[in-house]
């Protein structure tokens, strides 16, 4: 600990971190427009805003990753120029990244030692990691390989890495997007300890209202690159914050509540099933049946442990569960990327060989994968190529691609799914995230799949894109496709699904119809308790 911090009263007059009229443009887009921000010691300062509000740009300027066009940054009242992350660190600013900055093949302690000067000393690094882990109650194994850690454990390691640098200001970017509810609670406890006992400052970037309401002392709300308001959090209501963030009065029920991550409505069990959703498809034929699926990961851990699941025509089945309980494995299985030790998969009554390249797709399983960059798209191929790659037979003649057919198919999908592109020959990489997701959606729906697996389909998308995706999934179900919605956002599941199944440790531990959902029971199941 540095001396200056001890004994200073909370909310001391000199703010630890200030932005004064910071402006940053990317081409024609003004990411930050005269942004003022004041972060004081001993407070958790929330920065609330939708995707694209300019939150991350602001942070990147603090961290020296992006240079401001105008305005200045002050640390402890003194104006400073931050031109690289090392400068930022020397001013006591540390960031816990949204995409973790740990190196996978290295061990936790080795990651901690990275960036340190002088000799690498395993003993002392491990000791310091243990000390910090103990002081903050963070469960981190210094000798574990980062690749073997779950996302929650990775984030804890990331936090310890930041704490090792003993920063004055802690910046967290959407820290709970990868965490379970319990892990989030744990995180906020640690942050509270950091600000209360040690008089550091925390900047918490988020688009989740409940998180900002519960965890922060003050909040700065940004919209389209500008600061809309700065206010103390106590006394604020979710509706007020949402209004400032979105810029119009929003109903905290239905689509938008899911979009902004507000938790209250579903928790109270008050949200009625939106109109237009077909009733539970009982009696309609089963189109996807997974029986006793067992799969083992490369490290010998069970990924799926006797998972059994049935999906009826025209229904949306929401798969709820704490992340890391086999959702990814189930998605991989249905994308033909994972093989099974035991168990069977049947699509429309036909057995499909698991792990055989393309078998699931050929049997009629469409896939919106969790990470579209890994198995959904090929970023370096063109938009048109990405749109037709699921069914080359339709655009070729005896193995020769027909350019005219490719273009026709691509244009038809672009129009139907309202994909915003400059040119169909541009690499997919050049599209925005929402439009990349639409490309995947378009390609998968173009084949009129019997089953559509949507894995975290709205993650990382903004409100408009979420609304679009939601509507599309509903429409697919209405047309008779069986939709398996795998999501870590309970709101999303409760809003969309006709039926909810809970996955825990690689197996389904309970199912219930949407109208019977009891949040307490659901929570218990997700936590692995029989209910």
């Amino acid at each position, binding site marked *: 600990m540095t001396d200056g911090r001890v004994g200073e009263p909370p909310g001391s007059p000199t703010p630890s971190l200030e932005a004064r009229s910071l402006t940053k443009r990317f081409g024609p887009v003004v990411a930050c427009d005269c942004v003022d921000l004041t972060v004081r010691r001993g407070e958790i300062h929330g920065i609330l805003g939708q995707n694209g509000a300019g939150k991350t740009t602001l942070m990147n300027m603090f961290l020296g990753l992006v240079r401001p066009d105008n305005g200045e940054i002050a640390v402890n009242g003194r104006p400073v120029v931050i031109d690289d992350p090392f400068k930022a660190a020397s001013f006591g600013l540390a960031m816990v990244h949204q995409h973790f900055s740990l190196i996978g093949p290295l061990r936790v302690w080795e990651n901690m030692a990275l960036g340190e000067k002088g000799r690498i000393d395993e003993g002392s690094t491990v000791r310091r990691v243990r000390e910090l882990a103990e002081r903050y109650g963070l469960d981190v194994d210094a000798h574990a390989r980062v690749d073997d850690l779950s996302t929650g454990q990775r984030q804890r390691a990331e936090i310890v890495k930041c704490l090792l640098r003993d920063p004055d200001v802690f910046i967290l970017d959407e820290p709970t997007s990868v965490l379970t509810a319990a892990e989030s609670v744990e995180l906020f406890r640690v942050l509270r300890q950091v600000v209360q006992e040690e008089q550091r400052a925390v900047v918490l970037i988020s688009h989740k209202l409940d998180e900002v309401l519960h965890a922060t002392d003050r909040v700065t709300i940004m919209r389209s690159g500008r600061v809309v308001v700065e206010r103390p959090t106590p006394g604020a209501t979710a509706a007020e914050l949402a209004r400032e963030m979105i810029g119009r009065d929003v109903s905290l029920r239905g689509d938008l509540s899911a979009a902004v991550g507000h938790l209250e409505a579903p928790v109270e069990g008050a949200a009625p099933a939106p109109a237009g959703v077909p009733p539970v498809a009982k009696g309609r034929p089963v189109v996807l049946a997974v029986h006793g699926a067992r799969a083992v990961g490369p490290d010998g851990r069970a990924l799926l442990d006797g998972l059994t699941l049935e999906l009826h025509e025209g229904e949306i089945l929401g798969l709820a569960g704490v992340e890391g309980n086999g959702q990814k494995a189930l998605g991989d299985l249905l994308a033909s990327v994972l093989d099974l030790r035991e168990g069977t998969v049947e699509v429309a009554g036909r057995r499909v060989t698991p792990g055989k*390249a393309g078998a699931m797709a050929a049997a009629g399983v469409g896939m919106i994968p969790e990470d579209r960059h890994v198995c959904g798209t090929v970023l370096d191929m063109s938009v048109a190529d990405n749109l037709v790659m699921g069914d080359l037979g339709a655009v*070729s003649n005896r193995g020769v691609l027909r350019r005219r057919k490719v273009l026709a198919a691509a244009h038809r999908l672009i129009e139907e799914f309202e994909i915003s592109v400059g040119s169909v020959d541009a690499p997919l990489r050049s599209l925005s995230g929402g439009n990349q997701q639409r490309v995947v959606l378009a390609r998968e729906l173009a084949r009129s799949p019997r089953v559509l697996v949507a894995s975290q389909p709205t993650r990382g998308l903004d409100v408009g894109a979420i609304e679009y995706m939601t509507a599309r999934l509903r429409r697919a179900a209405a047309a008779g496709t069986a939709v398996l919605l795998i999501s870590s956002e309970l709101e999303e599941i409760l809003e969309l699904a006709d039926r909810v199944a809970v996955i825990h440790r690689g197996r389904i531990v309970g199912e219930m119809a949407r109208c019977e959902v009891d949040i307490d029971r659901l929570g218990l199941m997700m936590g692995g308790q029989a209910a």
Partner: protein
Amino acid sequence: MTGLDRASGVADVVPVPVPPAPGPSLSSADDARAARAARARSVAGTVALYVVSLAAAFAISALLVALTHGSPAKVFPAMYRGSLRSFGSLGYTLDNTGPLMIVAVGAIVSTRAGLFNIGQEGQVAVGAMTGAFVALKVHPAGGPVLVLALLAAAAGGAIWAGIVALLRFWRGVEVVISSLLLVFVAEQVLFYALSRTFLLKEHGAGGATLTESDQLSSKVQLPRFGTYPHFNFGSGLLIAVVLAALVGLVMTRTTLGFRVRMLGHNPVAAKHVGINAARLGTVALLVSGACAGLAGGVLLTGQAYRITPTISNNVGWNGLLVALVARNNAWVAIGVALGFGALQAGGGFLSTTGVPTDLVNVIEALVVLAAVFPPALQEVLRRRARRSQAVAGAAA
């Protein structure tokens, strides 16, 4: 997660027009014009980069020649004379070009599939060996022997690359490692064959024979167009150009090429849509090996007419460089191979003018380096741009 993932993960956040996204907006005339202008700028930049880096290579070469008491002023004219000035030297350039182009085309296929086969030097040697075996040991009358020898050469190279594929898809051995190490095995196998008369060793009258094979009969020599000292070149070049065009078309116009590219860019997505990585990857490696082997066959039947331990003479390595400079585009490789062929011809002539062979090698290497530098630099810059775009993107 790799750097690539991280970089791409950020594309999500590239400033998006206010949602809900506007309807389809296909390239308007303005966009197209802007895109054309941007492309023109980048082409101009590339050309400038090549000019600067080649000028630097020439300057350093001149300096080296001056330091070794040679005359820099005579070096480059000599290289020009040896490669391009007369019909004879032009023919020599074209003869060098053929095998380089064939190797490069093969390298393009495997690299596009995401498998970095760098063992062409060995595959060339094995191809030359199997080709020589057929050419020397099979004696039917008439034309098919030549064709058989070339096919055997291709098969030899394919088998050598097949070992790489087997190791990769059966045991998970990295292609770069196994293909590279097999080069040295190939050299030893060739040397063994050339020191045993029942295999390939020359049947000499006395005991003092060399480690080389008998000369090929004229039936198994590739036909030549034109005669010395007029414009003349071997038909190996035709084989090379046809092959390059074929690969160029297959890669861009067929579902097979589409699948190969997809496999190379994203094997997981490829598997999802039904591409069997082991099968298609093996095909790509076999094709690349067959090309290298065929290049060995062309060297044998088109120029050397007998096999020696050094028959491949860096054609495998240089062919890889051709593919690199051509950025894995088969059409571009045709031109690049010509450039490399000219360089080799010029270098060969240069060493007859009294410049030490070592220095000639250094000069050749400098020019090659100058040719490889721009694409390498641009790749580095592109990655960096992608990363900072990522940061900027994460921003908005």
